[in-house]
């Protein structure tokens, strides 16, 4: 991640696709693991752990959306709905059948994947704008259905309370223990995506994105891979929804409205389309931004707004800044924060002898 040789010396495809591009990368990963597993949970205050937890959940969702939008070049404005499918599936299984998280979590993901394939069906016939509108319709129809059918939504206010996850009698019921629970799944998602991207499937996704006709000619079944992208992507989304449910202890449709889909689109655009690091950076950025805005507004905003208006102002500002950033990054730096990071890194690659 941090160390690079001073040029490109790779001579085989295997070297190019290796998970650890240099031996030293293993040490970087080991250092990161040490920081995240030992140092942070021991030293950081619970409030900051809760922020990290939210980031971990967002990473899973952002990676999923990036597989679909960034790698495969399809578009989905309905990802929040897939999350809600996962969340309500898991909540119903956990409450009605009393199943543990290691069953409800994959079940939620699989259910979301099934619905995702259904919503993604139109991508076989249409693309671009039409697909965007079809997934938008999917979002609205799923939202409506969950809200109206008490068998799914659990009746009152369409929310289901869920117990915290537990394993071998140990219950993850504090921020500190949830930290490890969520860290595990975030890392799993990151490693899975890294490996997916360098596998046959990942290369097929990229081929479909770059030139679908050429991809078909070299023998990629684009129907299969598009549906596969929708399935994998909504599986991630479903898992993300389940994690939200376990983290908050409640499944509520308000967490999965259209606006959340836009949040996740913002993450991958700001972070960088088609990149794992970009998804992570975007998730961190988008999760931290409202917190920064809130702190800023509590200090400065009280000069202009009364306390009663403040909540509205903060949520409005948050949405406004997201929108502005999406436009800004699309116009100025379409590859997002990931590209900025790469620019910085390649500057230091041969530093201080850059010429």
């Amino acid at each position, binding site marked *: 991640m941090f160390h690079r040789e001073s040029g490109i010396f790779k001579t085989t495809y295997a070297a190019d696709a290796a998970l650890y591009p240099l031996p030293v990368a293993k040490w970087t990963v080991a250092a990161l693991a040490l920081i995240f597993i030992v140092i942070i949970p021991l030293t950081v205050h619970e409030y900051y752990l809760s922020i990290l937890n939210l980031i971990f959940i967002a990473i899973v969702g952002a990676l999923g959306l990036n597989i679909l939008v960034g790698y495969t070049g399809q578009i989905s404005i309905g990802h929040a709905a897939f999350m809600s499918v996962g969340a309500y599936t898991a909540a119903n299984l956990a409450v009605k059948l009393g199943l543990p998280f290691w069953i409800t979590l994959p079940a939620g993901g699989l259910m979301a994947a099934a619905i995702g394939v259904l919503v993604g069906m139109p991508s076989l016939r249409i693309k671009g704008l039409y697909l965007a509108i079809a997934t938008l*319709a999917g979002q609205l129809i799923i939202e*409506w259905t969950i809200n*109206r059918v008490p068998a799914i939504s659990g009746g009152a206010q369409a929310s289901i309370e869920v117990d915290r996850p537990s394993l071998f009698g140990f219950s993850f019921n504090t921020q500190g223990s949830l930290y490890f629970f969520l860290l595990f799944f975030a890392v799993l998602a990151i490693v899975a995506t890294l490996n997916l991207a360098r596998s046959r499937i990942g290369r097929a996704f990229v081929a479909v994105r770059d030139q679908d006709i050429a991809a078909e000619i070299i023998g990629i079944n684009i129907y299969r891979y598009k549906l596969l992208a929708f399935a994998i992507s909504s599986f991630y989304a479903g898992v993300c929804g389940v994690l939200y449910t376990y983290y908050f202890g409640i499944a509520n449709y308000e967490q999965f409205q259209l606006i959340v889909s836009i949040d996740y689109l913002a993450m991958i655009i700001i972070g960088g389309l088609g990149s794992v690091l970009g998804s992570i950076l975007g998730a961190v950025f988008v999760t931290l931004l409202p917190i920064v805005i809130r702190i800023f507004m509590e200090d400065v905003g009280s000069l202009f707004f009364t306390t009663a*208006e403040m909540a*509205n102002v903060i949520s409005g*500002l948050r949405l*406004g800044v997201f929108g502005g950033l999406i*436009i800004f990054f*699309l116009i100025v730096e379409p590859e997002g924060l990931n590209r900025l990071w790469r620019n910085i890194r390649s500057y230091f690659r041969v530093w201080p002898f850059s010429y």
Partner: protein
Amino acid sequence: MSEDLEFALALVLNGASIGLMYSLIALGFVLVYKATDAINFAQGEFVMLAGLIVAVVLGFEGAPLIAAIVIVVAVMIGFGFGLERVVLRPLLGRPVVAVIMATIGLAAMLRGLGPVIFGSETRAVSLPIGDEPIVLGPASLPPIQVLGAVVAILLFLAFNWFFKKSRMGVAMRAVADNQQVAQAMGINVERYFALAWAMAGVVSALGGVVWGSMLGVDVHLALVGLKVFPVVILGGLDSIGGALVGGLIIGIVESLAAGYLDPYVGGGTKDFAPYVLMILVLMIRPYGIFGKRKIERV
């Protein structure tokens, strides 16, 4: 006339007038798509912005309605031009997904900053048309719906004239048909792109007045924008007549669904039926009733 039939007819008339109001907003979407191939996911937010401006102007003591309308039309024209210059032009030649996401970002920005700047309370836009329902056969329609329908039809006629007869309209059709050839014939394509956005601004301004007066102006006004998609998909994305017919059909379907299905499912079919219809259209005939068959098969 039997009672059932009267009920149905009343639903149809009510739906048709609402549907024409949908076409009013859909017109803005179609104009932009036709001329520039850009998809505007922020059409509802345009309407909200226009409604906010009207409400703010009317909020001043003694401000006449006509002044408010003139101001909002002028502001929205400027907004359309500015938007094209700042956001859309740098994205020319980029994948269609980039434009879609830019307008989604724009929608989020307007929806977020609108209430911060203008305040989040619901404002009323009162038009001097009274509250007496207008009785039309078996249906009695609120006057605002009738006004909205009339405005939509007038705008439709005006655009029809514009595209058929005026020099600019013909040039715009040329741009829509083939940008390169139009440019070769000496048409300033970028200027017509800007003009299309400005025209969308005008349509949204009038939509903002009518819809704002019907629903009250706050953030939720932007939600009418979501109804634009069923309308334009059904009518055909690049057809102005399609927006009108699509709006009528969606309005009627919505009203019938609400009238006949709501008692069974406990309300809300109104927000559901149009999208189901839209998915069906996307599956069977994605270019809509009047749209050009240029959709790229995958």
